[in-house]
């Protein structure tokens, strides 16, 4: 197969966009990738799936934006192993997080987020990041005794004399809800939910 680079193509723009992202802590790191594969050689996702961190960077540097729609990017564990060993100071882990935020802002991957809406909800109700209830059934099945433990949590905490209680005061919850509203988080969550529920 032949791929063509036209005179006006500027593949590097994609990498530049990632570099400019607020989350990027590695400056020009992505541009310095030498494709050595050290990231891949320590990556749990590469070990057990078709995901390949070096290849992610290769595609970014080629300006291949189809990567935003590639399901494989959702296989990253965010374990930061690549980030801690990359000899040129790149971080595939961060690049990947940025790719997903770009995807989401292009309304890609909403289905991937939908299951995790519980994290958002618990913030508005309790200002904590609780495991979404949607997964409780699975956990009950996978983890013997977990449900009983959860039901006894209050007693166990009492026995450990843990104070203050789990739930923060109302002012705190209100303040946090307000913050997440003004950053645009709430709107985003509602949009994702609406879009996914419309599909169903």
């Amino acid at each position, binding site marked *: 197969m032949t791929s063509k680079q036209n005179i006006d193509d500027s593949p590097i723009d994609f990498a530049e966009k990632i570099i400019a992202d607020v989350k990027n802590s590695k400056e020009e790191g992505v541009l310095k990738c030498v494709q050595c594969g*050290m990231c891949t050689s320590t990556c749990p996702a590469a070990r057990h799936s078709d995901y390949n961190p070096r290849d992610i960077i290769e595609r970014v540097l080629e300006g291949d934006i189809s990567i935003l729609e590639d399901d494989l990017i959702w296989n990253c564990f965010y374990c930061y192993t690549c980030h801690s060993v990359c000899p040129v100071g790149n971080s595939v882990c961060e690049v990947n997080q940025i790719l997903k935020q770009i995807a989401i802002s292009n309304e890609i991957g909403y289905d991937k987020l939908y299951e995790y809406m519980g994290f958002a909800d618990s913030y508005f109700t309790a200002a904590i990041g609780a495991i979404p209830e949607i997964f409780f059934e699975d956990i009950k099945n996978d983890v013997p005794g977990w449900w009983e433990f959860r039901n006894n949590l209050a007693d166990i905490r009492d026995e450990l004399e843990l104070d203050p209680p789990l739930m923060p005061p109302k002012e705190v919850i209100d303040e946090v809800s307000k913050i997440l509203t003004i950053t645009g988080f709430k709107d985003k969550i509602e949009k994702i939910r609406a879009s996914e529920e419309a599909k169903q």
Partner: protein
Amino acid sequence: MRDDLKVGVFLCECGGNISDIIDLDEVRASLDVEFVGQFENLCSLNGRKIIRDAIFDHDLDRVVVAACSPISHEKTFQDYVKPLNPYLMDMANIREQCSWVHSDKAKATHKAITLINASIEKVKQSDAVDPIYCQTPDEVAVIGGGIAGMNAALSLAKQGTKVTLIEQSPSIGGHMAKIGKVFSPVKIAEECGMCLLNPILNELVWNENIEVLTNSKVIEAERRAGTYNLIVEKSPRYVDTERCIACGKCKEVCEVEVPDDWNDGLSTRKAIYRPFGQSYPESYVIDMDNCTKCSSCVKVCNMRAIKLRGRPERIPLQVGSIIVATGHKLFDMEKRPEYGYNRYNDVITQSELGRITGVNGPTKGKLLKSNGEVPKRVVMIQCVGSRDEKPDGHRYCSKICCTVALKNANIIKHKNPDTDVVICYTDVRTPGMFEKYYKHTQENEVRFIRGRPGEVVKKGDSFIVRTEDTLKGEFIEIEADMVVLSTAMEPSDGTREIAEILNIGTTEDGFIKESHPKIKPVATDVQGIFVCGTAHDPKDITESIMQAIASASKVSEYNYGGVEIEPFIAEIDKDKCILCGDCISRCKYKSMSIQNDEVYIDPMACTGCGKCLVGCGQKAIHVNGNIDEKILATIKGVLSNKNDDERMILVFLDNIGYTAADNIGVNRLSYPESIHIIKVISVNRVRPNHIKYALENGADGVFIGEFPGDLMYDEVERKVDRIKETLIELNENPEQIMFSKVYIPYFTGLARKLTDFDKKIEELNL
């Protein structure tokens, strides 16, 4: 009283080059001096007589030559004014910076008069001074007795120079003695390293001009006008090298066994030992850190060579130059624990592999694992600690490890063709002829996998090397029973220590820095100290030897040429100086030090930049040659001739900028007549006072140019910024001052900048 001086002006027509544009009659008429003469070609040999006669006839005290640029003929006319002191002559550049850049005759003539007047004012401020002539002592210290130090010492000794070779370990020879085989990319063959080293070693030992001090370290150094006083500490050897015949009886009876560092700890030696077979001095030595002082060896030695007591001896040394050849060490594998070097015996370094395959090594040259078996597969991992920006890694490429890996892979293949050798690499760096050797290695069935392994783990009896085969895009686990790490080269501890003792600059990686990476590759930033070998940066044996010989020849330049120094250097007024030492750190040229309770300025190093002046609260420093006064006089001279409607821009340039400006003329480009260039020895000598005076007395703009490679560049840039700030405070327009980079070849740019600046000033004046 300086006003009463008798000045003679000599105008040169330059065969029409000057007189076609500049009306010299008008110039002559306008000058108010003791003598004015005009000649067709002043630099011709006749010129000497004409000038000398006029000096005698008119009893001239000062001379101005209005002709070409001082860059081309200053030395000539300094010579022609004899017996007048050469520094009582000044040149007005009315060719490169007047007749060649302007075409309007009236304006050019007016500017020529201005330039000549400025020279007259300047030369009146000059005093007779003599150049300083320095002859440094011929003796040389070479620090480090590896392949680089040995070659430098030998080259100098053969030229008749007395050399002291100072080596920290008990024997000279360095890393090369250990590496086993070396290879030739041209012959495509591996040869015995020791066999190549030995003749050099012998020659060195027999050369009467070389004294070798082993077990020795430089611990103090002091410099004075090109002479270094070094203190060398020689640790006791406990065996008298004069008596010991290296019979080895002593080591038979010694019961202390320790890892042998010469074999990278792969074998053991006794507490009394000889470092290696060909070591020099040819004598045993006791490792006192491990010796139990049992005295068995003392009793058995027929030569009565052993004394268990001894103290370090301090040897003072006086030398004129120093060559630093303190070498490198290898990356500490504790910093990359994932490769398991400290966990597993059969994960080794290339250096250790060199010992294992060396016939004088622990296995007598047999490639064996720690269990005595021949490995089935050896995996080599490249770039360990190199090309790695993570903590403790090095960003640079260590340059030799690709070829070392190829060499060792070939040696393995020669010895055990059945052993599979795999090299895991990111790039194979084999420039020039080495590429042929790379191909030869491939023909030898050595395998290459492109990928940087992440870790080495042990599974059962073998290792698993985890890597990606990046060309296939596949994560793989390679089973191996020996893993060899190509570790980075880094500056040796000795290199770091000597840099501190001698106060020489180092790179961010800790290597000794050359004073210019392109054109001064062996000089350091301290006069008289040179560097060679891997103390400077990673390099192979050949390059180390080339650099060693280059540094030796630089030393010879010193020794034979002597050095004549322009006398415009800083001087300390000892009565005013309170020894606060502030100036010492300020000097970028490292020319100042405190010696014998006085601030001492090394004439060989001082450039007269004047940076030290500014910070001295006691005003105890001055720079010879009335430089301040001369600059001020030149400014006055330029401005005194200003017409009311004339725009006047002063441009200060040092040698580099001035040469660039000359090039504008040489290439017959032009810039406005308002531009008046003043040459200074360092733009740092232009003080805020000068600029203030100029702006208050008729200058419309000031342009300062500096070569960014100059050590003082940042300094000058900051200074100009400060002056601009003061202008703002005084409600003046800071745009009147411009600071700009200049480069010799980029004269078109300078012409344009000058023209643009003139335009800007014109607009400001509207």
